[in-house]
């Protein structure tokens, strides 16, 4: 399916390449021009991706906007793209945050702005590609190639320990994905033995029944790759380093989109491909998620550095996302997908606001600040809204996601849900305490007296994020309704043995009921 006869997904993936090509011909000293080109191209990409929302048929279980052509016939690799109700939002989040990232680092890039923008645009290509690839080989290509623009963002434009952080980021991810490659190859041959066809098509692989010990190993290989990316405790140690050293745009993209690739990987690959292994490992995975939630929250409380605090809060928040996913019921998974968006918006926003103060003062240490409320009222207000969204204040977006996740988790494991819920309180503690130390009281540090408040550009960068924070918080229906069918389909898949999935994998429509469990649950809140 296409929009206006255009292969819309390819267009979204590769449109940033236009920007890259243009930038190659820009003089290396005209930084301003490079930034404007990048902004225009990423904004155009966002606009191109926007019609997907309306064109997407929310009642259809099959992948939509499918493109499928042969790429490497010798291995049966195909250029196969498609979108479902879950990746719809991940793609939109990617294109939105790319614009925000370009606009948000207008002043922070002090050297080689052209190369910086090229990296950002290439990153966008890779990220979108990861989310829409239905051929596992193609997915793997995007997954690996996308690392390098990020590696450059951290390594070239990062702060003091950038080399260490950049190489750690690459080595962690690569180690895990190397084992995933072995698992992918193994599945490829399982598929060949079962069907006689060489295929990397994920829809073919969904029909594969894999024997038990093998299924555990393969699940472990996939899960490790994704767990590093999420990151789940105890594979999270690369994250604080990468975040602290990365420039603001890098942090925004890293937290906003890259981490979602891990959760997406569980959703698309690890769980539906290995249903029995998923069930077997489920208690452990739920346990690790809860540990991650609490550990991240506790570590946040002792952070002296704002950026590091936000980084660790990601560990905690992604723990929520994983918990919802592993609850494996409509509320949990839908909350989890919504929370992926929320986290992208809120934490992306947090990194932006921290970056804004860093641009002014060149420090992120909480102790350096105090009393900023009087000096920078606009900044303080926007900062507070984003902080509250991250905490999960009712009527802001974070609440909806966490609430759904906790409802879902409670049905599976009350203990896990109770423990996780306590982290909501901890989040309020560490974020509000930080806010208090930075903004309230008297201005104790003379350097803060003369700090300028936000300019119109910075407000404009934050505006779309604030808009979504309020929108999702007050009226989440437009978001939930589009993902309902796909989430239900995912849950059914995980609960169905691959041998019995034939009917499930046939494209079919789900009747419109005018209100699902989730919207009812929300109405009764």
């Amino acid at each position, binding site marked *: 399916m296409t929009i206006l006869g255009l292969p819309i997904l390819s267009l979204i993936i590769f449109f940033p390449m236009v920007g890259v090509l243009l930038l190659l011909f820009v003089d*290396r000293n005209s930084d301003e021009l490079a930034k404007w080109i990048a902004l225009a191209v990423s904004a155009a990409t966002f606009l191109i991706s926007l019609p997907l929302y309306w064109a997407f048929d929310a009642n259809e279980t099959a992948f939509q906007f499918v493109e499928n052509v042969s790429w*490497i*016939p*010798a*291995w049966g690799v195909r250029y196969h793209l498609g979108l479902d109700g879950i990746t719809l939002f991940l793609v939109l989040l990617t294109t939105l945050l790319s614009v925000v990232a370009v606009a948000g680092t207008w002043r922070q890039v002090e050297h*080689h702005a052209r190369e910086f923008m090229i990296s950002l645009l290439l990153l966008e290509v890779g990220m979108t590609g990861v989310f829409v690839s239905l051929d596992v080989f193609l997915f*793997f*290509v995007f997954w*690996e*190639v996308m690392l*390098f623009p990020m*590696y*450059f963002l951290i*390594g*070239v434009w990062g702060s003091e320990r*950038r*080399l260490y952080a*950049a*190489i750690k980021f*690459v*080595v962690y991810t*690569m*180690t895990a994905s*190397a*084992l995933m*490659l*072995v698992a992918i*190859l*193994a599945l*490829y*041959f399982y598929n060949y033995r079962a069907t006689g066809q060489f295929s990397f098509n994920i829809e073919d692989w969904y029909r594969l029944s894999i024997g038990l010990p093998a299924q555990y190993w393969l699940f472990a290989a996939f899960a490790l790759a994704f767990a590093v990316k999420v990151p789940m405790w105890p594979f999270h140690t690369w994250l604080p380093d990468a975040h602290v050293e990365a420039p603001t745009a890098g942090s925004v993209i890293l937290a906003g989109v890259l981490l979602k690739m891990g959760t997406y990987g569980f959703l698309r690959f690890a769980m539906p491909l290995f249903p029995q292994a998923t069930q077997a490992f489920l208690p452990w995975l739920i346990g690790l998620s809860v540990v991650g939630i609490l550990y991240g929250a506790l570590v946040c409380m002792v952070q002296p550095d704002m950026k590091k605090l936000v980084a660790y809060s990601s560990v905690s928040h992604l723990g929520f996302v994983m918990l919802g996913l592993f609850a494996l019921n409509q509320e949990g998974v839908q909350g989890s997908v919504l929370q992926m968006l929320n986290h992208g918006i809120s934490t992306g926003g947090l990194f932006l606001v921290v970056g804004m103060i860093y641009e002014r003062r060149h420090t992120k240490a909480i102790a350096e600040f105090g009393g900023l409320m009087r000096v920078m009222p606009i900044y303080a207000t926007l900062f507070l809204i984003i902080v509250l969204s991250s905490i999960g204040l009712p009527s802001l977006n974070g609440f909806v996601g966490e609430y759904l996740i906790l409802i879902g988790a409670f049905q599976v494991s009350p203990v896990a849900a109770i423990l996780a819920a306590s982290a909501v309180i901890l989040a309020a503690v560490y974020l509000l305490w930080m806010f208090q130390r930075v903004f309230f009281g008297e201005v104790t540090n003379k350097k803060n007296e003369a700090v300028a408040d936000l300019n119109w550009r910075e407000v404009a960068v934050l505006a779309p994020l604030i808009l979504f924070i309020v929108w999702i918080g007050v009226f989440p229906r437009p978001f939930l309704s589009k993902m309902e069918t796909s989430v239900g389909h995912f849950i059914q898949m995980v609960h169905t043995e691959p041998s019995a999935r034939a009917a499930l994998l046939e494209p079919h429509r789900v009747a419109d009921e005018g209100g699902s469990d989730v919207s009812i649950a929300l109405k009764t809140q």
Partner: protein
Amino acid sequence: MTNFLTTADFLTILPETIVFVMGMVVILFDLFGRGRGTRNLAYLSLLTLAVTGYACVSLYGQGLTGFRGTVVADEFAIAFQAIFLIVAAMVVLISIRYLEAQELPFGEYYALLLFATGGAMLMASSRDLLLIFIGLEILSISSYILCGMIQGDLRSNESAMKYFLLGAFATGFLLYGIVMLYGATGSTQLGDIASALTQREVYTNPYIWFGLGFLLVGFGFKTALVPFHMWTPDVYEGAPTAITAFLSTGPKAAGFAALVRILMEALSATHTQWVPVLWVVAALTMTVGNVLALQQDNIKRMLAYSSIAHAGYILVALVVGGKDGLSAIVFYSLAYTFMNIGAFAIVILASEQGHERVTFSDYAGYGYVEPVLGLCMFVFMLSLAGIPLTAGFAGKFQIFKSAIEQGFVWLTVIGVLNSVVSIYYYLRMVVVMYMQRPTATSLQHRATVSVPLYVAIAAALAGVLYLGVFPSDLLHFSLQSVSMLIAGR
């Protein structure tokens, strides 16, 4: 007995003949044309290689056999000969500027390069242990001399001496192996050895095992497999850089071509014996090569250890065997040629008059001094590390795919983890080029223009990207080229 010398006999060895004859012509040209520089000799060599390539293409698919079955121009031979020709052509292209910059006005250089290439080609097309040995010696002796080409340089002399001494040892082992196999089977022809091995009393003859062992040790030296790799870093470091590029690609591929043919055509009955041995050697070679490469500060030494590791990956393919595994050897040899010679080409381009740039710190900020060349180097490093969309990934993918298919799961796991280790040192080049500030001693100026070098770099880049993005054509070709090795088994 059929007629001893027919046209078919000579057609079979036509490519080798052209290369050898033209090698001598180059020497004569050099003798009578002194003082006119060596550029013309380089172009003559390129022409020779092109003509030979054409001869190879015309012979492809005809399956000619010559000299009573001792030489064959089958698809496998021609595939490897084509690789050697590409190697030689690229080495000639990168040598032109190198010889001028390092003031090495020796016309013999190109002649020796042609002889070495001819020797390598003979190794790929021979079906007789003695002929393989002769090819190997032509290749090796030419290489020894090429290593010591920088006469006033101690390291270059050390390199040649070391290579010669250890090479002589390896030759000894190889000859012992051949002798023992001859003693046990009564023949040096691969086909006869295979048929002799079908008899039980021959198969159980201990000389077979000694012969096999000595052969593996000999080839282990020549292709620098662990634990016979010790000579590699010193030889590669001291040799002229263009020759290092040649050594790491041409002779290595030739060694594998001959080893594959011997193991598949003569000794496949004994594969239960050599597969476990080579399994261990492959795992060791990958691991030792990669781990030692981690701590090198000299790029030539780093690439030397990395070439050991890459030999390990190729060996995995040999252990796996089968159509898929063997075709991966062909594919990987070509892929490795492009990426490795590409990297060396950049090192040569960065070198200045009489002064080479071979330590990492020389390249601090290189990506900003030379944006295009820096990007090329980046791509070559990614390919060596095996990142998708490059030839290196496609090659590794084919190797590991065949390994998984045949059930070598642990060897694959060792292999992929090794390529993660390798990412660290290949990315070190990237770190230096893009993430470090230029220092007082690092490269500050853009290199002078050298068209042949640019051609070589462009060809390498095109090869790396084409094979990386569209590997299907070469995959089909390499599958075709090894199919007779399997059929004849």
